[in-house]
């Protein structure tokens, strides 16, 4: 019952945020939510099926460019369909990349995904007839029917709506057959296989679902930022996503969201420190993992048990 109240309060805060906060913080909240969707997607892959990816900035880029180009060339398409298309195309790429990657594990997979991310940004840079390459691409305003999402608040509601949908889907994972299979794989791959869970198939599905989440997030990212350039989607961005899920807690839905919020807010609030920013950020990461091994979700679980 208490959990339901907390959820309700959180929903109310989410809905009321644009009236409570100044304009910049509305944008920041949108960014947190987008990162939370990526972290959720990455956690489905890394936290549940133990496949670490250092290439999710590449998936985010595919989603972002798909959404931007679709809106540019077919302005009549409603934004919801655009986002679905961005997610679907990214998922197809994810599946195509995930199948051969089934043979890889641990550091080898980390390296292959890192290489994937690099190849994607290079491809965007070189397909400049389509993506405008290094000049960057201005993203047109998203439209929903006759309604243009031209303000930060309008875009925030789009992001919040999609995020709530995707978080609800992830949180209810245990109610589906696929979800239960993923949970079983998270607990023990060998035990799952012994109980008849086709591990390879579900690992591939996890790759596809993870890419779908990240692709949708990419579409949202394109609309809230308004300008895309391939160098934004570099390996540091991919590393940031990994930081979000480890600091938040591997294999945890609330952990993904909290991790995304912590990393996004830290990056933003430390901007004033200028040259000291990476120093402070780095030391916070060290302290975080020293005092909260298992991330914030692990810490929370220990507090609750006490």
């Amino acid at each position, binding site marked *: 019952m208490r959990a339901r109240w907390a959820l309700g309060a959180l929903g109310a805060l989410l809905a009321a945020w644009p009236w409570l906060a100044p304009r910049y913080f509305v944008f920041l909240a949108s960014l947190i939510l987008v990162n939370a969707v990526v972290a959720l997607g990455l956690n489905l892959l890394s936290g549940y099926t133990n496949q*670490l990816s250092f290439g999710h900035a590449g998936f985010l880029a595919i989603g972002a460019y798909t959404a931007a180009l679709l809106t540019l060339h077919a302005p009549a398409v409603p934004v919801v369909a655009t986002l679905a298309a961005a997610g679907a195309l990214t998922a197809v790429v994810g599946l195509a990349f995930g199948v*051969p990657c089934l*043979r*890889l*594990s641990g*550091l*080898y997979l980390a*390296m*292959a995904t*890192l*290489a*994937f991310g*690099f*190849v994607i940004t*290079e*491809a965007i840079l*070189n397909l400049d007839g389509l993506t405008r390459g290094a000049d960057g691409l201005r993203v047109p305003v998203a439209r929903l029917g006759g309604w243009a999402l031209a303000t930060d608040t309008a875009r925030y509601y789009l992001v919040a709506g999609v995020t709530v949908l995707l978080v609800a889907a992830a949180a209810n994972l245990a109610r589906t057959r696929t979800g239960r299979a993923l949970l079983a794989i998270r607990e023990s791959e*060998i035990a799952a296989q*012994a109980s008849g869970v086709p591990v390879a198939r579900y690992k591939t599905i996890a790759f596809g679902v993870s890419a779908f989440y990240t692709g949708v997030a990419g579409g949202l990212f394109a609309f809230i930022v308004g300008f895309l350039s391939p160098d934004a989607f570099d*390996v540091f961005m991919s*590393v940031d996503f*990994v*930081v979000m899920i*480890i*600091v938040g807690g*591997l294999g945890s839905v609330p952990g993904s969201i909290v991790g995304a919020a912590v990393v996004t807010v830290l990056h933003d609030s430390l901007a004033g420190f200028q*040259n*000291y*920013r*990476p*120093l402070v*950020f*780095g*030391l*916070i*990461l*060290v302290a*975080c*993992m*020293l005092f909260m*091994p*298992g*991330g914030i979700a692990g810490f929370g679980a220990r507090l609750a048990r006490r």
Partner: protein
Amino acid sequence: MTTAALVHVIVSGLATGSVYALMALSLVIIYNATRTLNFAQGEMLMISTFVAWSVQQTFALPLGVILPVAVLAAAAVALVFERLVIRRAIGATHWDVLIITLGLSLALRAVAGLAWSHDEFPFPSFFPGRPIALGPVRVAPVSLGIIGASLALMLALAALFRWTRLGRAMRAVAQNQRAARLMGISVERVYSLAWVLAAVVGAIAGVLVAPVIFLSSKMGLIVINGFTAAVLGGFGSMPGAVLGGMLLGVLENLAPLYLPSGIRYSVPFIVLIAILLVRPAGLLGRIEPRKV
């Protein structure tokens, strides 16, 4: 393209590759002993090279002091990290330690930026600048120097691991930590020594490569190439790290000659993905059998 020019490109590729190989070796040394991937390896290299350069410039000492100072600085940084940070991470998983080393690398790069700015500095070279003619082939002495010094260091490492007590202890810990402890090996000491040894190898790589790529706070990013090389060769395998490094270096230098500019930077990565698809544990890596 003439054969002589081709040989020239391959030699400089091998030189770059030697540095990648040393970087890969230092990652593998720590990984084998502690099963952690050290994100901060590149920044440790960068800091120790900077310290050695500052000491040499400030006190106007002969160039010869750079190497020992770099080695000492690297060993000190590694000891401090291992003792004060990594060892305190009790109950932390490998993922947690990965984030700790990432945090350390960010902090180190920021510290270097504050102490020496983020500019690039020319770094004195031990080798003459004029190319040497070997028959029709002209090669840069710095390339030969890097290759020679790296090979010497690799042989020394091989001897250390094969014939010394310490090397045997490190191999034992890499194979089976519990059995090693039961045989009376202090696993904690092996951890510390692995960090120090890796840092020393990295420092030497830093001093070798700094004249070519300039001294800057960003030079630590070479760790990504080292990681690529180690994976290419098979993570955990030392001959694999050397092979992977050399292959990557030559590939990077050859690709621009034959390929359009659009894809030349992607080639090493595409080759890497292709190799991993055929050999999922790298060229010389072994797939560990799964025990149920």
